[in-house]
């Protein structure tokens, strides 16, 4: 089979695609072998196909991905009521409840970790007459030698004193306070030290 230049040009695409019947394929090859023009056209077309297959020819503009994401986010609301959504909500709720539980649990909530004199005087008889003075936050048994500013002392019941924010004197009311031995500072961690700091400074 002999083919003309025009026929070769018409078949170039099919030839490159491999979509050409064997007889014609052989005829095209034979023609190209002897025709300089058709060799040039074939080689050039092959180059065109090869070069344009590279996706760098049309590159995505800088920032395309970000702008697309933003556009999608504006229009696509996250699904509601999906299993995943409910799992996230449940996990968040558990986290809140869990945090509260942890905050209320030992060691943070144990009264033993506080210094004895900072304990509310819950064991002090409510109706017991006690003495307070204006420049101290402690209440005492009458006659306690640790009462500050004796000129301005006044009497009231332990219940009233505690109601007004006074705490029992760790000396004269010691017997009503938790035994010091009960105080178990089990190697306080940093968090506990921070919590203890203001109480200690109030002592001095």
């Amino acid at each position, binding site marked *: 089979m002999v083919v003309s230049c025009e026929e070769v040009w018409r078949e170039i695409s*099919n030839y490159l695609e491999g979509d050409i019947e064997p007889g014609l394929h052989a005829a095209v090859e034979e023609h190209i072998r002897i025709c300089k023009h058709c060799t040039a056209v074939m080689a050039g077309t092959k180059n065109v196909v*090869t070069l344009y297959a590279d996706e760098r020819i049309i590159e995505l503009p800088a920032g395309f991905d970000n702008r697309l994401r933003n556009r999608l986010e504006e229009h*696509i609301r996250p699904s509601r009521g999906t299993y995943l959504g409910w799992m996230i909500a449940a996990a968040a709720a558990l986290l809140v409840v869990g945090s509260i539980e942890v905050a209320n649990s030992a060691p943070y909530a144990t009264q033993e970790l506080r210094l004895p004199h900072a304990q509310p005087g819950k064991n002090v008889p409510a109706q017991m007459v006690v003495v307070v003075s204006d420049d101290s936050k402690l209440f005492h048994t009458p006659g306690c030698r640790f009462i500050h500013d004796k000129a301005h002392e006044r009497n009231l019941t332990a219940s009233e004193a505690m109601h007004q924010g006074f705490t029992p004197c760790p000396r004269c009311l010691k017997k009503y306070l938790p035994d010091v031995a009960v105080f178990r500072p089990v190697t306080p961690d940093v968090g506990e030290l921070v919590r203890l700091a203001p109480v200690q400074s109030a002592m001095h």
Partner: protein
Amino acid sequence: MSAQTASLNPAPKSEEILIRRIQDGESELFYDLIKPYQQRVYATAFAIMRNESDAEDVAQEAFLKAFKHLAQFRSEARFSTWLTQITVNEARMRKRRGRSSVEDPMTEHEDEEGNYTPRDFADWREIPSETLERKEVREKLAEALAKLGEKYREVFVLRDMQQLSIEQTAKALGISAAAVKTRLLRARLMLRDLLSPGLGGGWSSRLLFAKGNKPW
């Protein structure tokens, strides 16, 4: 090239699963589904619109439409072809609305049924792919592509740049496979003529020389 092939053919199984999950309501997965197709959709839009900002608008719009109509997508079609089809429709619609002022120079004197006669017979040596590392060459290729008439650009971009099959290209463009083949041949020959002054001589020999090979 292998990265390109991989990006064009994401594992169909996982893609199918993603599509089903999005159809079932997990819309936040849509981005994962379309991420591998960003370049394809943009390039398709660019081939028709011929400018960056319109192409980006079209691409974004096409993705949003794909999301909106995902419920209608049937798995017997390929997602990539479906997405390309949406992009082509969106770009054509936009083009009709805005009626681009840029004329397609190579649509003149075209007779799709007639034969195309090459104008330039300069011999091309094989062009190494490193040539494309030069921005100047990439720009020349993009410029030449922009000079093709729209119907040739569309076919060429889908088949030769996005590597769709003849049938997929025909489906995406809504034309026959025979029309794809005819337009593809013309597009390739026209591009060759447009690029011959550079690629047939100057650029490639300069590159070969730069690489230490004697061009004589």
